[in-house]
């Protein structure tokens, strides 16, 4: 097994302590940073798929994402300024009136693992704050809005519509327990994902990668 294949395998099973050294060994073996990054992104794709199918659970997904993050730390100095390896910036937040962060955090980790640069606005985010963040950050390719409470569904709608009013071409995905694909379409979102694993797939699909 080549080192890059080993990186891929160890990220998938969340070996946080082994991945950094393996990434370095893969570099020494001649793999480019972009190749190694892509291998880890592919691993996380497998992890996300297993999570969506119920074959693994949140801790297993988290340690895989953590292992990848450790690997990215090794690559970061070598990738600096290499915009081709990033799918752009994704702004994420839980909408106004809602304090739940777990779904939003999991989605953030998986979208980051897919190759986006994340800007996390936190919880209880007013619609205007999403718009400000689009303005303040470079190359925002995606906005992800989360809402867990049925009572905050109007806030989800307001967030999407406020973003679309300011930036009509901005891609927006939504998710959370009460959200359905029909509701997402009704409020004008570009996509919906039922869980963190499929959110990463949907994110890439929406920006047409």
């Amino acid at each position, binding site marked *: 097994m080549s080192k890059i294949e080993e990186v891929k395998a160890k990220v998938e099973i*969340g070996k946080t302590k082994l991945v950094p050294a393996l990434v370095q060994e893969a570099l020494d073996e001649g793999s480019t940073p972009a190749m190694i990054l892509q291998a880890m992104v592919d691993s996380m794709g497998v992890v996300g798929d297993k999570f969506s199918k119920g074959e693994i659970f*949140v801790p297993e997904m*988290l340690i895989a994402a953590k292992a990848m993050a450790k690997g990215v730390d090794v690559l970061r100095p070598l990738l600096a300024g290499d915009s081709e390896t990033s799918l752009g910036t994704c702004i994420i937040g839980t909408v106004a009136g809602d304090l739940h962060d777990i779904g939003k*955090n999991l989605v953030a980790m998986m979208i980051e693992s897919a190759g986006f640069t994340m800007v996390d606005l936190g919880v209880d985010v007013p619609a205007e704050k999403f718009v400000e963040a689009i303005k303040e950050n470079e190359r925002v390719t995606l906005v992800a809005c989360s809402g867990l409470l049925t009572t905050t*569904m109007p806030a989800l709608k307001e967030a999407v519509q406020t973003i679309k009013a300011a930036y009509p071409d901005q891609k927006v995905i939504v998710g959370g327990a009460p959200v359905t694909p029909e509701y997402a379409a009704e409020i004008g979102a570009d996509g919906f994902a039922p869980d963190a694993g499929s959110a990463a797939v949907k994110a890439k699909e929406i920006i047409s990668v």
Partner: protein
Amino acid sequence: MISKRENYLMAAQGEKPLWVPSFVEESNVFMPDFWMAVDPATGTDFCNIRWVENDAGRMPDEHWRAMETLDQWRETVKFPKVAELDWPEMTERFKRMSDPEKVNIAMLNTNGIFLIPIDMIGWVDGLCAIYEEPEELEAFISAITDFLVEVVNYFGEYIQPDIVFTGDDLAAANGPFVSKEIWRSLYKPYFKRIVDAIHKIGALAEFHCCGNCQFLIDEFLEIGVDVCQLPELNESLMQKKEKYGNKLVLTGGWDRHSAAALPGASEEIVRESVHQAIDDYGKNGALIFWDGGICGSSEDSQKKMKWVLDELNKYGRVVYQ
């Protein structure tokens, strides 16, 4: 005529009562003061968790971390000295506020051996600790269990509740946070200790989880949970209900993702949702109705709560006659 308490306990014990009891309307709830007490200087509780609150409830502040690493729990957590709490005063206050007609529920906790470590260090590190620091995590879980069991013993001595309520969100809306293997090896023995302690004081054990942890219902029943408060309804819960019948006692029944839960739902739809809840999950008893999911003080929520209660008092009163 039987009292509200007697009627409630019939449902809680898996029988068909005279009417469908209401979790909110027909119970006196005791909660020890220490859960809500915060340090005035830091605004944190005894686990050094800082809470933020809004109209819909309270959550740990995501910008605050109670400790840097899990192994710091011993010096971070200041478990209240249970024996030194003013139990006679808390008991007296509870009795004064209670309606003797209603059932007495003692709230042991709403976050416990699963959630407390996560509330302290966040979801990512809290859940990764299952793999990265299993021994340290289990030591902490064991210490939390010891504390909760001691509190239960004082409940028995002073409050003498009919039901002890213990809550821990092991699952999100779309599924469990951990696998059955992790549940069995890490959490189940400690949950069983808590349930055993509750039974030892002569009370029924009610377990609450906000999310969809239907795949653990068999396990909950195995460790002796008497009442499951599971507000996340789905086909899987329906199947478990069909499998166990009145051996599976539920608090809930109301579908918080139905059309009735949507903002602006009509009175007719909301009223119908009460019938649906009772017909689906309590047609033969063993249901304590709870509209878990209607929250906040908005006009919409207030209207819904009024319609739901009114319909419960109408349909719920005659359905078993």
